[in-house]
């Protein structure tokens, strides 16, 4: 399950292209190289939308890393001016407790990006392991692992997370662990499918004849050859998890409150009067989530195109 926009038509076209120009892809290159087709990455810069999203993403990462130096105020410091509109002193105004919104927004970038990338790191590790083992060994192993995957996939992820978080208690660490440990099934499905396709190739058969061990074949020979779709799926998963974390924090079961996260900055807006009078409370964090997810999604689409997934 890649992003929503996997066009098979495009895939077919690129397959034809491969057939027409065999010299463009020497067979020998794919076997040994661990990071395949990285030279294609410069193609990313072809579209202006991609360049803009990359810039946006890097500046968000920059903001997150250097938040203590960039933020004009302490994000936890409660000031005297409560619910002040944006002005020269507070560019984005202050919240119900008089804390500076801009500072909270900058620190919030840390949480959103950290959850986005760390959770996908965990799910990618689990998903790739399950998918490789399931696809490579097949038979009973495959049957059992895929049924377990099906069970996880038939839960609405949010509900399962809500229950697990309410049992474990809400904290940033728990959110990352839960999102990471429950997000693997979709990736496992993808990796299994790709593994099944690659397993039939001659070079894997040769590896078997040479007596290489299963883990060695999976890690050194199959994984590098299925890295591209995994990279693309993982990118889309980052955007999904950033949105999910913000939704959880909005619902009050995500990052607990004194810590600023984009989602829980919006959580305070439950009453109509706050919503109408103090637009700066919800507009900035909402737009921040939107732009962040948008940038990552655009990047995923660009990667898909550049890597010809």
């Amino acid at each position, binding site marked *: *399950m890649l992003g*929503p*926009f*996997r*066009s*098979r*038509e*495009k895939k*077919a076209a690129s397959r034809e292209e491969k057939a027409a120009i065999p010299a463009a892809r020497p067979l020998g290159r794919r076997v040994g190289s661990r990071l395949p087709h990285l030279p294609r990455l410069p193609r990313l810069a072809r579209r202006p*939308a991609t360049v803009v999203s990359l810039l946006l993403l890097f500046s968000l990462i920059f903001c997150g890393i250097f938040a203590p130096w960039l933020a004009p105020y302490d994000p936890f410091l409660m000031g005297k001016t409560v619910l002040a509109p944006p002005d020269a002193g507070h560019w984005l105004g202050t919240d119900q407790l008089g804390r500076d919104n801009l500072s909270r927004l900058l620190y919030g970038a840390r949480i959103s990006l950290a959850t986005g990338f760390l959770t996908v790191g965990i799910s990618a590790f689990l998903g790739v392991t399950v998918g490789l083992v399931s696809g490579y060994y097949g038979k009973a192993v495959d049957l059992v692992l895929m*049924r*377990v995957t*099906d*069970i996880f*996939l*038939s*839960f*609405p*992820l*949010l*509900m*399962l997370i*809500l*229950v*697990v978080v*309410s*049992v*474990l208690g809400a904290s940033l660490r728990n959110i990352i662990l839960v999102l990471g440990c429950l997000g693997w099934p979709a990736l496992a499905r993808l990796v299994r499918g790709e593994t099944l396709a690659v397993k039939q190739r001659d070079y894997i058969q040769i590896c078997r004849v040479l007596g290489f061990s299963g883990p060695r074949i999976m890690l050194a020979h199959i994984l590098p050859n299925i890295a591209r779709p995994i990279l693309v799926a993982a990118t889309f998963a980052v*955007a999904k998890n950033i*949105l999910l974390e*913000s*939704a959880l924090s*909005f*619902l*009050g*079961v995500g990052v607990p409150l004194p810590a600023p996260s984009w*989602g829980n900055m*919006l959580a305070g*807006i439950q009453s*109509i009067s706050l*919503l*109408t009078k103090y*637009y700066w409370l*919800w507009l900035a964090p*909402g*737009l921040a*989530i*939107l732009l962040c*997810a*948008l940038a990552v*999604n*655009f990047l995923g*689409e660009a990667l898909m195109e550049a890597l010809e997934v």
Partner: protein
Amino acid sequence: MSRYIRRRLLICIPLLLGISLLNFIIVHLAPGDPADMLIRPGLAPEMIVLQKEAMGLGQPIWAQYGIWLKNILLGNWGYSYATHRPVIAMIGERVGPTFLLMGVSLLLSLLLAFPWGILSGLRQNSLGDRLSAGVCFTLFSTPGFFLGISLIYLFALKIPLFPPSGMYTLGGERGFLDVARHLALPAAALALPGAGVYTRYVRSCTLEVLSQDYPRGARAKGARTFRLLRVHMLRNMMITMVSVIGMEIPPLFCGAVVADRVFAWPGIGKLTMDAIAARDYPVLLGVNLIAAIIILLANLGTDLLYCWIDPRIRYSGKGEPPC
């Protein structure tokens, strides 16, 4: 056909067992003793032991799972810690509004996505197509609650067209129109991100179908675009789209949970959030189980729709739908 349906139904059984097992494990991870929540305070310790025996808590864990499963099948889903009402009744009264919200927004997003996606596919790489790609990306990158809040701000507060929350006007007549007006904003907030996703899929389906020979053949024989779409392309696109819709049901459900919070919609999401606030585990488990059942049913529905759309599956009687 009936063989296919039977196979599909049989596949559901191990899935449901696994789901219920997962649920059961989670309830056992929960802190606190279930007996403590139901037993009156000040009871003698011997009485508590007797009560626990009566509740089956003294038995080994697999036996407890068996009892629990039997109760679930018999419709005894336990009692809420907070309200002491049967869980199944509490869920029963919330399922309707959730189904209404999910159904209407699914319909809305498909009604939006089909014309939009087809048009964008027919005019591939035109300026409009590229702009619409940008709009779609923005739509499905929007967090649902932010979209909801913005819609309330714009269309309930600045321009008071729709009521901002609830399902009925307080003290008002509970008519169809009243519900429809209350439904407008939550349904839109739920439908728009979905429409973004579906539009991209419809577009790539259109491109895929257009690349085949038969539309070209029909075109060569003089079919107009509309007839080409209606007679030749739509049915083939539906095969892919049905599986896409099936895949998007779980996210739709999650969206409904969030929409319940934003719009105070009296659905399952509100029940869940109340249960979390009160640490009401029986309700949480019941809600989780019903969510899983809804999704399994949706998947089953998808498979049956395949059957109806694609005669190859109907007549072969088995096998996976071709994707």
